Structure formats: C-alpha cells, structure tokens
C-alpha cells in the first residue's frame, strides 16, 4: 500500500495518478480498437472525453446542490480541486448523457461505439484495481492463506490483485473475441458480463461489503442482476434465437 508520496511541497496521490494513467492508456486502446468495429477512433475518444468533462461538472454541481448551504457560504469551493466534493451518481448520469448526445450528433452507431469502448473499459478496470491496491481500499477479509497481504491490521485476501488478474484475463478474452466483432454491441455485453462475474466472485472475499439480512452482500446481488440483464439482451442484440423467439 502506498497511497501517496511527498515530492517537495506537493503531495502526489498515487492511486489518483494510476487512475489517470489508466484512463490515458484506455483511450489509446479505444482509438486503436475502434477501427475494427468500423467506428472512427477519434470520434470514440471524443465521446469519452465529452462524457468525462460533463460528468465532472455534473458531479460537482450535484454535490453543491446537495450541500447548498455549505457552498453558499463559500462559493469559491465550487472550483476547488477536492475530489471529495463530487457526486458520483449525478456525474455518471451527466457523463453518459453527454457521451450519448455527442454520439447522436456525430451519427455514431451506439452499439458499435459500445463495442469500440469495451477493451478500454477493461483496461481501465485493471488500473482501477491497481489504484485500489495502492490506496488500500476494496480490501479483503482476514485469511490465513499464504498469499494474504498485511493490510489494516490483519493478513487479508488480496482482493485487489484477484480483481486485477481476472480483469486482465477478461481483457485478453475480449481482444481475442474482438477480432470477429460485428459492431452489434455483443462485445460490450460480454465485457459487462465478465465485469459482473468478476465482481460476483471477488466480492465474496471482500472485507468491506455492504450486507443485508443473513450477511448477503449487496454488490453480489447487483452483479447477479446485471448478469441476468446481459443474458436477456445478448440474443436480442446478436440476432440469435433467444428465449422469446
């Protein structure tokens, strides 16, 4: 775990730095991969950048609306660099809407665009897991297994490493499957399905899960629902013989 390093007067947050590097590499991969599904790499990257830009603004405005009194007393805080004053849900909604609107204006086929983004999404998820390892978040339950890591006062399952390795394997699978991608959105569905399956598996070892009655982990239930949605959509998007046919 190495959450940050001090360089002179500046405190560099390593997890944040790793996330930024991951984002940059994911965009590079997207630009290269997009052509395979007949989408302009530049336009695909621009859609992501629009989404990110609008997403950050929406996240800050959403947070400011939630804590209106605090921001009215210190309006300059609206422009501060603190990432702790962002509303992730509103940011995600705003970002997705902006990317979708950009794609619509540029007449980008939505499912092909989603396919184009798939390897980049997985590469970013890999770097996110590394950032979590550096920051000590998304930590595992205590274990006596020899590959456990010392974290927060106990020897724990290295859940961040489990997630990173599995995500890397999923990326390999998607890059291979991407050779025959048709731009019908099924590559994206495979990506979402793989990410949900990884979360379902790794969450079982996590020590910070939100749980409901009986100790059932909420994230696993959500992942299972996502898998069911992928199962329902896949034959419909691929034009195969689904259950409703």
């Amino acid at each position, binding site marked *: 775990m190495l959450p940050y390093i*001090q360089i002179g007067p500046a405190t560099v947050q390593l997890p944040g730095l790793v996330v930024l590097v991951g984002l940059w590499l994911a965009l590079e991969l997207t630009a290269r991969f997009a052509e395979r599904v007949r989408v302009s790499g530049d336009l695909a990257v621009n859609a992501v950048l629009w989404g990110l830009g609008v997403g950050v603004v929406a996240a800050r405005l959403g947070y400011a609306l939630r804590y209106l*009194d605090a921001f009215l007393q210190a309006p*300059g*805080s609206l422009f501060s660099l603190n990432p*702790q004053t962002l509303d992730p849900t509103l940011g995600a909604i705003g970002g997705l809407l902006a990317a979708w609107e950009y794609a619509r204006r540029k007449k980008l086929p939505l499912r092909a665009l989603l396919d184009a983004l798939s390897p980049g999404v997985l590469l970013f998820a890999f770097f996110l897991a590394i950032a979590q390892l550096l920051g000590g978040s998304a930590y595992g339950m205590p274990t006596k297994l020899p590959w456990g890591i010392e974290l*927060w*006062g106990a020897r724990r399952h290295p859940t961040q490493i489990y997630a990173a390795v599995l995500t890397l394997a999923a990326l390999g699978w998607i890059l291979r499957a991407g050779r025959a991608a048709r731009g019908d959105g099924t590559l994206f569905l495979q990506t979402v399905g793989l990410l949900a399956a990884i979360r*379902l598996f790794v969450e079982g070892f996590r020590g910070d899960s939100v749980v409901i009655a009986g100790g059932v982990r909420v994230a696993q239930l959500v992942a299972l629902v996502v898998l069911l949605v992928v199962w329902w959509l896949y034959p419909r998007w691929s034009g195969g013989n689904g259950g409703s046919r």
Partner: protein
Amino acid sequence: MRQKRAYWLWLAAILLLGGGWIWLTRAPQSVRSGPPPAPKEGFSAPDFTLQTLDGKSVSLGDFRGKVVLVNFWATTCHPCRAEMPTMERVYEQERDKGFVVLAVTAEPSAEAVRAFVQNYGITFTVLLDKNAKVSREYRVYGTPTSFFVDRRGVIRWVVFGGPMSEALIRSKVETLLKEKP
C-alpha cells in the same frame, strides 16, 4: 432448437452458480460487527493521547459522541497553512453543535508551533506528536492529511493533501453532525 437450449442452460448456470456463490460467501459475523481500529474509512479511529501546548493531556477517546476532524499538519507545509483559517472558521461556527478539531503536528519545536498558532489566531486544540508515533500509527506520509471521525468513533472520510475547501469541510461536518450519537 439447440441454440434455444443453450440459452436456457446459460440462465440455469447463472442462477445456480451465481446464487450458490452468493449463499456460500455470505459475510461472516466478523465482517458485520464493529470494525477494528485502523486509519482507514470504515474502521474505528485508533485512539491516542497527546499533549497540548500547555502540557495538558488530550485523548481522541475523550470526544466520543462528538464529530472530530483529526488534521495532521506542519508549520512548513503550504497547503496546511492555507486550510488552517478555513478550519478555524468552520470550527467557530459548529463547535457548539459538537464539532471538534484536533490538529496534530510532529513539529520538533513547540515554540514554532506556538508562534504559528498565535499568528493564525487558532482556537481549536493543537496537539504535539513529538516522536511522530501517532503520525506513524495513522500512516501519515505527507501533510496535510485529515480524518473525519463520526460520533461513534468511526473514520468516515480521509482527505490526503490539501488545502481542503470550506465547502468540503462544511459538507462532511454537516453530514456527521446530523447523525445520532
């Protein structure tokens, strides 16, 4: 026909394997019970006892039931200097509602700290971590680092670096003050 069969087999696999794994990996009681002490969000804030500039001993545990901002700082750190007046403003306004600031410094010179406190007009509690034991226990590798501790003594947010904006401090403190002890 074969494709249709595979489709339903996939559903069975998702439900059986997914559902089975969820049931098998239910969180044990140790995960559901109170968190052990560690300098991390979701864990109990490790207790410490330090001395003020006047030589009075103060423990974090003394403030159970209150909202505490534990801020690690240094007189030579620019972001620390920038956020001190902000913390002071929020402290002045919220102290009567149960908000406490413990500003911990591993500065070797108590005199330099005293001069700084007078210069900035600080009224919240400043604690001297002479051998940096508490800073090490809280894994403070750089200043400022801030821990927002709720009324139950659990760390809710950690802010690495700074300066923290006034809205950041207000919004976090406001949220924690609204919670029941």
